[in-house]
């Protein structure tokens, strides 16, 4: 058992004929992912990287029994691509596409939820379980199978941290990049229970950013429901304050959403807090060593 992906995951790549779709289809396959097909309307019948391309998700599923999708479709068309996947019965869609309007994402998220489907992203690096499967774009080189779980709102910073875990001789169970957009399909609080229940994960690394209150909500969940050790890092501690959402936004997050409130909440929940990314691997290694002596 792993988180979100497993050995029976059969991935469909929506937007496979685009540059990114093609490059990452190859890299997902090199990782060991079972990429069974691609979808680009109008290009059905061709192949990309040896993978058959279909005109619709429905056609792809009947030919390949795909049960997950990785979406690279450009932002103006991403909503339609996701709705098509959900309507065809795909239970898990990882959306890599960036710059999707949040009004589109609101419809996508609530529709998917009403149909019992999960979205990871948008604007995210995706999900990877070394030795099992990867859906998304995290570089293959940073991984090594192990028992450290990672949930992050960042992209490249996640690669850096996952790589750091490898460099101290440890490995990862599953890494999920949630994406940093205003509306995400899977939040920290949605992902934490998956790691709590995952027998492959012993320690969890949580990488947050300033803005929003997702880390505070994660801290609340950790305090009450999460029993495994957690190492947390928040990027942007010294960033100048910006009011992305203007006045009304400040009202929603009154007294929350800064690096200080996030770090304080995570500390109070029992997480070990790293001040810099390079402290994370050592904190994790210390926890692993301590647990081994129990």
């Amino acid at each position, binding site marked *: 058992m792993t988180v979100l992906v497993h050995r029976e995951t059969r991935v469909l790549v929506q937007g496979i004929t685009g540059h*990114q779709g093609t*490059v990452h289809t190859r890299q997902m396959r090199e990782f060991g992912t079972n990429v069974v097909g691609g979808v680009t309307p109008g290009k059905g019948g061709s192949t990309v990287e040896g993978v058959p391309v279909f005109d619709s998700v429905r056609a792809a599923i009947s030919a390949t029994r795909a049960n997950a999708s990785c979406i690279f479709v450009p*932002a*103006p068309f991403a909503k339609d691509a996701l709705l098509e996947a959900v309507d065809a019965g795909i239970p898990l869609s990882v959306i890599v596409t960036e*710059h*999707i*309007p*949040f*009004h589109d994402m*609101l*419809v996508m*998220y*609530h529709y998917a939820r*009403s149909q019992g489907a999960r979205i990871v992203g948008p604007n995210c*690096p995706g999900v990877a379980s070394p030795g099992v499967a990867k859906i998304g*774009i*995290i*570089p293959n*080189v940073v991984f090594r199978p192990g028992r450290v779980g990672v949930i*992050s*709102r*960042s*992209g*490249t*910073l996640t*690669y*850096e941290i996952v*790589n750091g875990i490898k460099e101290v001789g440890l490995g990862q169970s599953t890494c999920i990049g949630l994406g*940093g957009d*205003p*509306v*995400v399909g899977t939040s920290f609080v949605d992902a934490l229970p998956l790691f709590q229940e995952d027998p492959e994960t012993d320690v969890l690394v949580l*990488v947050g*950013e*300033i803005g*929003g*209150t*997702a880390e505070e*909500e994660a801290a609340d969940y950790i305090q009450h429901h999460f029993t495994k050790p957690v190492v947390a*890092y928040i*990027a*942007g*501690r*010294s*960033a*100048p304050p910006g009011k*992305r*959402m*203007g*006045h*009304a*936004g*400040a*009202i*929603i997050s*009154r007294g929350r959403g800064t690096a200080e409130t996030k770090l304080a909440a995570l500390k109070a929940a029992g997480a070990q807090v790293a*001040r*810099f*990314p*390079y402290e994370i691997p050592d904190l994790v290694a210390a926890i692993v060593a301590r647990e081994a002596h129990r």
Partner: protein
Amino acid sequence: MVKLAEWRGKDVFRKYGIPLPKGAVARSPEEAVSLVRAGTVPLPCVVKAQVLAGGRGKGGAVRFATSASEARAATEAILGLEFKGERVKEVLLEEKLVLSKELYLSLTLDRSARLPVLITSAKGGVEIESVDDTEIDRQSVDPFPGLTGYEKRRAAQVLGLTGGPAKSLDRVLEALWRLFLLEDAELVEVNPLAVVGDGLVALDAKVIIEDDAAFRHPEFADIRDDRTPLEEIAREKDIAFVQLDGNIGVIANGAGLTMATLDVLKEFGGDPGVFLDLGGTDDPQKVTEAFLLMARARPKAVFLNIFGGVTRCDTVAKGLVEAMRQVPAAERFPLIARIRGNNEKEGIEILRAAGVTSIPSLKESAQAVVAAARGPA
């Protein structure tokens, strides 16, 4: 984000049928006078600076006039003002209404709930940040049924409205909700929403359109945020570039890594001021352009911190070497590089050939940058 000035926000309000005072925009005192003389702006009137910052009333950017000559004087006084760093180029002249109540209404996104939220308060007419939490009501609105009758009734109750004004509120809320969805707004705010006689009138309008939805709204393409000239060039080239005070330039890829780099530099006493986020690119040309843009900001030292994923290390190295060739010797600055990830070896080799060493440790490379920015001891 695309922030609309009040008068443009009100144009959008008008399109959705939200009641407004009679008024018009003037760009000169003469224009103000003719608007009043023609009766386009009834007297007495209010003259308001068209700037994006709040607090105009207290800052002398709102004046009143009871005659054409007063309207001229008020317009003259306001045009050319520098209000919170923004030069006033336009004023909005509107009839001064007799109102009995000032209320607050807004729709925005609640990221945690992943739902739009309707915010109402009976304490309108002041900055909402100064209103006590207990006086502010928030209701999540599900996009599927949309704004419901019971949600509108609760808003009326919170605002203390009955009869005519309550009926008017029903129509205003319906219009605001449609505007919020169809215009891809990240914020619509009416403050104050005034009770005038038996109805409601929106005295102010704040509309912010989401950047990512700009492709659906070419009508707002001419609106620019207050960017520096270099930030404007960066935007045209699709490079994320932010200029603040500080003498260290940071080139990274991804917002999280950029912020983490900033945290580390600050920790070691550095003063990072220019941030350039390459994002995901595998085009060396774009890297060159980004780097030349950084050079124009004249930093004391530059820290290149890249973790290669979509952006490959060798692409960045190639683009960088080309840029260094183009920067005149007199404008060169110390460059400290840290490149890791996809095609790391190739990238490091290209940099080495050009005389730049990549320092693998974030801590050590950050310390080297801070020392370089301080100059020779």
